[in-house]
């Protein structure tokens, strides 16, 4: 029997931790707090939790059920469900390949920052000096030391996507290391990663708790927390909030990539995945909320720090221009002084009025950042102002690494499991060789993200490789199960596994609610893409010291199109091929019958 020879998790806990480690990733830390900020702070939790219950949980349950029942990776599983639908599995694998190629670059950056934290002063705390040792490098002065370290010393970014530049050795070395770490974790097979996920799943929580304790004790953290928790319910009327909530749930749980199917395929047939699905989804959402608590205290600290520095600068400017005693101007009487000086010495005041920046705490808190900008710039800026910054830096970047590697293990599993299911490949290659070749291939392709324009290509992959295609895949998945395979048959399968039929709630969400939601998202994104005009990106201008918007050149747009099409086209293509094959077989059979009689 095939069941006995398939390897399995040592205990159900490893499966749960693997799912948690995969689902809880960088998106929880850098995407969810951003969405909270954009959509009215605490009020965003309402659409988020509704979407979790209505869309996220049912789909998570569905994928685990498929994996555990079919006991194969995504390609085998979907071919078994319906031969015409084998393309869904292949599409999942294609998306996972794109994902693994670009995602590990983030781990490379985390390694880079981690290694650079072992210095007396953090390298992003100060601007480097120009050659005559009298001023700072102009690019650094115009932006900030953390921006400079990210854009210049880490990425050495070029001014546009067309300007390729060479491979950055530091980045390339870190990328190779990241792939070696991933290989180390998966080379004994996905089920053996069960030991690794004990660590990758729990360590981030430890760091987040430490950071939360430190974060809320920072000066000004309460400003950030207050900002987050005052719900601006008017923002809920904006449909974008609901769309973002639905999208975030989908991607945060990692649906559609085939990783959950792969993990579940190593379960025992009677494993109670229903309870586990609920537990993992709830943990994932709770982690997002927890991470935004930490992020908002850090935001509050950073905003307050910048606000107070701004006040100090203004105070110094006034004191120096008007030669007043040092402690005459305090933050609370600053405005009075400004109006007084403006009235008494209008000419002199006019000379400096352009330099007086309005210091506003609200506007500092309003600067919402997401993605690599949040993780690598905003956080490192906050860390450099904390006491014992090296320790906090090491902790933080180790946490990012664990989150990233945990998610990578899931992505890699989604590719390796179907590969190992293939009898042909298993016969000719040992599993270590197979996995090694896959890692090597992804590493080599990933090196293109370490060039000077690599970050722009990374953004393309980040925005397009696994977004639209995943929506499509998840939609096809749910329609296949409910209407092609049959909900009744699926119910029976589940009953065989866990001993009872799924509650009517699951059936309603699978057959009606989730498909409708996903179709709605699909329509919205298609319309948005069509009406959006030429897609643009943020390019770093070293002369200005900030980002400027540029349009993608035609070949970059072609790559975007290719990313979207290559995964989605697998579904109709495989259906067509299977159809043609079946027709050929039928023709052969009828030939045999006619010749026999």
């Amino acid at each position: 029997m095939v069941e006995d020879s398939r390897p399995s998790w040592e205990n159900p806990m490893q499966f749960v931790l693997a799912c948690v480690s995969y689902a809880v990733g960088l998106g929880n830390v850098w995407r969810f707090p951003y969405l909270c900020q954009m959509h009215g702070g605490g009020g965003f939790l309402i659409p988020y939790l509704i979407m979790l219950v209505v869309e996220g949980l049912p789909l998570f349950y569905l994928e685990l059920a498929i994996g555990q029942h079919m006991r194969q990776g995504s390609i085998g599983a979907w071919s078994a469900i319906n031969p015409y639908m084998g393309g869904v599995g292949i599409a999942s694998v294609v998306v996972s390949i794109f994902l693994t190629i670009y995602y590990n670059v983030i781990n490379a950056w985390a390694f880079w920052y981690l290694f650079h934290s072992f210095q007396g002063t953090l390298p992003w705390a100060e601007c480097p000096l120009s050659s005559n040792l009298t001023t700072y490098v102009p690019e650094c002065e115009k932006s900030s030391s953390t921006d400079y370290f990210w854009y210049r010393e880490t990425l050495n970014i070029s001014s546009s996507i067309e300007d390729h530049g060479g491979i950055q050795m530091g980045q390339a070395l870190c990328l190779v290391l990241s792939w070696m770490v991933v290989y180390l974790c998966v080379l004994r097979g996905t089920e053996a990663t069960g030991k690794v996920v004990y660590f990758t799943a729990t360590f981030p929580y430890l760091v987040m708790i430490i950071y939360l304790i430190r974060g809320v004790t920072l000066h000004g953290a309460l400003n950030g927390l207050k900002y987050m928790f005052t719900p601006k319910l008017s923002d809920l009327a904006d449909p974008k909030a609901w769309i973002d909530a639905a999208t975030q749930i989908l991607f945060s749980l990692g649906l559609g990539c085939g990783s959950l199917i792969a993990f579940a395929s190593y379960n025992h047939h009677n494993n109670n995945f229903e309870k586990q699905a609920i537990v993992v989804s709830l943990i994932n959402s709770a982690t997002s909320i927890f991470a935004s608590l930490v992020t908002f205290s850090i935001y509050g600290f950073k905003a307050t720090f910048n606000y107070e520095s701004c006040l100090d600068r203004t105070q110094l400017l006034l004191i120096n221009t008007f030669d007043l005693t040092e402690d005459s101007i305090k933050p609370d009487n600053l405005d009075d002084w400004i109006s007084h000086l403006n009235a008494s010495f209008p000419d002199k005041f006019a000379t400096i009025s352009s330099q007086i920046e309005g210091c506003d705490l609200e506007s500092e808190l309003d600067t919402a950042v997401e993605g690599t900008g949040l993780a690598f710039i905003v956080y490192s800026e906050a860390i450099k102002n904390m006491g014992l910054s090296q320790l906090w830096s090491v902790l933080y970047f180790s946490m990012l690494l664990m989150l990233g590697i945990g998610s990578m293990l899931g992505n890699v599993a989604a590719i390796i499991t179907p590969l190992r299911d293939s009898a042909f490949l298993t016969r000719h290659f040992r599993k270590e060789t197979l996995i090694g070749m896959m890692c090597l291939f992804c590493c080599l392709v990933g090196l293109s993200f370490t060039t000077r324009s690599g970050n722009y290509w990374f953004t393309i992959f980040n925005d397009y490789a696994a977004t639209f295609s995943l929506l499509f895949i998840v939609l096809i998945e749910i329609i296949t199960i409910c209407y092609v395979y049959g909900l009744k048959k699926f119910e029976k399968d589940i009953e065989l596994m866990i001993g009872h039929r799924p509650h009517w709630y699951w059936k309603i969400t699978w057959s009606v609610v989730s498909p409708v939601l996903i179709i709605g998202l699909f329509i919205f994104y298609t319309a948005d893409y069509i009406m959006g005009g030429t897609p643009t990106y943020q390019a770093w201008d070293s002369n200005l010291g900030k980002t400027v918007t540029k349009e993608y050149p035609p070949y970059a747009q072609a790559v975007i199109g290719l990313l979207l099409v290559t995964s989605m086209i697998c579904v109709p293509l495989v259906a067509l091929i299977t159809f043609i094959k079946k027709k050929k077989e039928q023709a052969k059979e009828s030939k045999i019958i006619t010749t026999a009689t």
Partner: protein
Amino acid sequence: MLARVLLALSLVPALALALCQPDGQDAYKVRLSIKTALGANAYEWNESEQFLFRATLAFAMRKYTGQETFNVSSVIVCDETPRVSFWFVVTNPNDTATLIPKNAVEEAIRLSRNRINSAFLLSDKTLQFLGIPPTLAPPSQPSLPVWLIVFGVVMGIVTTGILALIISGFIQRKKKDIEDEDEEEKQEGIMENGISCETLEGKEGVNNGAYSHDEDRLTQL
């Protein structure tokens, strides 16, 4: 006679004041931020501190030019403000009516900047000479970047781990192959389809239940 002496005496400070002009060609503005630097330990800026400043500057001029003729009186200060900022000029000790040019003063200050700062317990940032940029301390550059060292360590650990796992997997597989071979060799006698021939010899045969009720199912011809 007395009147003439008095007139001459009164002219000297007037002359001195005329030499020291804010925004003068050879004048420098100095700004001290004592409270920012020392907080609670800040000292009061008074005439004596001013005297110390002029003496320190005269010392700097002596050191730079090598001429020991500079004196406290060579440094003239004017336009003091409560900020604690003022302008100063340095007069030529040989000819008190002329001023030492700006570049020379700048070089002198640059040379002894550290000494001047320490006299007042201040730093380049808190004792500012407007127009003379502070020499920023270059960050220490170790010979081998620290990050490469840490990178090397981690890379070494990971490589060792990978090799260990691959080799142990290889050894396990070899052991399993040898064990399987041993198991087969250990079986005594001749094997036929996994059933030892000895068991077959002693019996009339084994009744295979799969075929026992099929007789009813065969269709009658």
